[in-house]
């Protein structure tokens, strides 16, 4: 087993230091194909982009364009067919587990553990003594607004609360890079906006780098510094846009601003063709 005792002491929360100048994520000419019936089916073709340390980047594209595949390749759950992914200079797959966090679209909490024990789990896996792990987890439960729900099981929490637990579970170990795969897609609009704002607040406090996959362009713009637009399947990078909106942002308010609407129109012009084509309206 990997020795991870020193992991919490590393300055993982602050990607500055020895990581200065090295991109948080480098995706270089990445191609991934899956074995289909007889032929190989490409999911991603020749995808390249970088994410700077501390940056918030959204990836949008029509459904089925390989967005989840991209995240799986970045966190090392999948291997590239061609090209490569480097996380802070290290090839994906050889990255220390504690450096990457992953928030899934579906609930990924352990149903047989209480909310508190879920949040404490990543620390336990890193060898933190149980008492200290629970203490830190308690502080994070408080930070995501779930004080008093420590001993509830996931089945006893609402969808929004479960997402908060998932966020705390990811942020509790200060991963330098957080991958998010449509994490709020299953929530109702109000809860979703609330969670988006909380995510931005937590991100501002932790200095993590976030790569946020969504099919919702409004969400992508409201949250991110830059938006990567992927084409329909097989996914290629169509264009990368910089979002010039002031921070701190309130995701509900920012949507009304002229700059937001202008950015939205600009990106939607690109994305619309892809979405229509993906649905056979080419």
């Amino acid at each position, binding site marked *: *087993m990997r020795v991870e005792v020193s992991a919490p002491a590393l300055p993982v929360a602050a990607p500055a230091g020895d990581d200065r100048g090295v991109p948080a994520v480098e995706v270089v000419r990445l191609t991934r194909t899956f074995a289909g019936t007889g032929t190989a089916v490409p999911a991603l073709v020749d995808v390249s982009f970088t994410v700077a340390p501390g940056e918030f980047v959204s990836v949008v594209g029509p459904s089925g364009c390989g967005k989840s595949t991209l995240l799986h390749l970045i966190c090392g759950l999948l291997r590239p067919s061609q090209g490569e992914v480097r996380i802070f200079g290290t090839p994906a797959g050889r990255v220390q587990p504690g450096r990457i966090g992953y928030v899934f679209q*579906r609930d*990924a909490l*352990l149903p047989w553990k209480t909310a508190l024990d879920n949040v404490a*789990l*990543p620390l336990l896996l890193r060898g933190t003594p149980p008492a200290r792990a629970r203490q830190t987890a308690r502080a994070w439960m408080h930070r995501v607004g779930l004080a008093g729900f420590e001993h509830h*099981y*996931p*089945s006893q929490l609402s969808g929004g609360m479960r997402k908060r637990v998932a966020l705390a579970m990811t942020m509790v170990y200060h991963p330098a890079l957080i991958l998010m795969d449509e994490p709020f897609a299953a929530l109702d609009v109000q809860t979703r906006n609330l969670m988006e704002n909380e995510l931005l607040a937590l991100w501002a406090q932790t200095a993590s780098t976030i790569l946020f996959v969504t099919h919702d362009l409004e969400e992508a713009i409201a949250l991110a510094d830059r938006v990567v637009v992927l084409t329909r399947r097989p996914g290629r990078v169509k264009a990368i846009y910089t979002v010039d909106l002031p921070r701190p942002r309130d995701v509900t308010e920012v949507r009304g601003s002229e700059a937001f609407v202008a950015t939205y129109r600009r990106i939607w012009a690109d994305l619309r063709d892809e979405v229509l084509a993906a649905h056979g309206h080419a």
Partner: protein
Amino acid sequence: MTHARRQGLATAGAQAAAVLTVLAAWEGAVRAGRLSQEFVSRPGAVAAEIWRWIATGELWPHLGATVSAALAGLVLGLGLGAALGLLLALVPLLADLCEPALATLNATPRIVFYPVLALWLGLGIASKIALVVTIVAFVGLFTVLEAVRAVDRTVVAQVRVLGASSAAMLRHVYLPATLVWIAAGLRTSLGFAFVGAILGEYMASMRGLGYLIIGAQHLFQPARVMAGLVVAMALVWALDAGLATLDARWSAWRQEPRHEG
């Protein structure tokens, strides 16, 4: 007293009344000559028989033998089955290899193995325990196999991303996932365990509830046969009630939020 509790007591009262009515009808029918005491005995005689067993202490070694065989077999069988199930679930190649054989064995009435077990282990308690193991192990095995396969893929991916080693996956994901199912399967298995123990005693033994019952049948003593049945039923009922309490505690995470107040 809450409404629900009062209703529960009322239901229990009605159930007890129904049982007493049936017993009274049975007793009455025998006394009136409508039923032959030679075949069905009567509740009074059965109760007297049980009381005699308790008063003389004759019952305890037999009860002890059956309970030990059933519980030892239950623990050994479930443990063995669960361990095998975990292994098969985590090594798919092994599962593919073994599954046809396991399905065949599982479809075979296990009592056909008893002569072999008795040959190897003798007519004492060991062969009864072994018979129970052959029955219960399959319940444990298939339960665990299903439980591990039913673990949410997203949960597995999440814990892997968090940096869990294989040992940590086992401890935090696979063991807890299977434990609840074992707890749920425990109640079913308990019944099977007593079936195995008593069947073994029917076949050949010198002790146990099965021995008491089959001995009484050979001597044509219906009250003793019935008494044996009643004791066996009461025993399983009490153990099952105990397990139900444990099951409720272990599966708290599967329950909906309590509405307090």
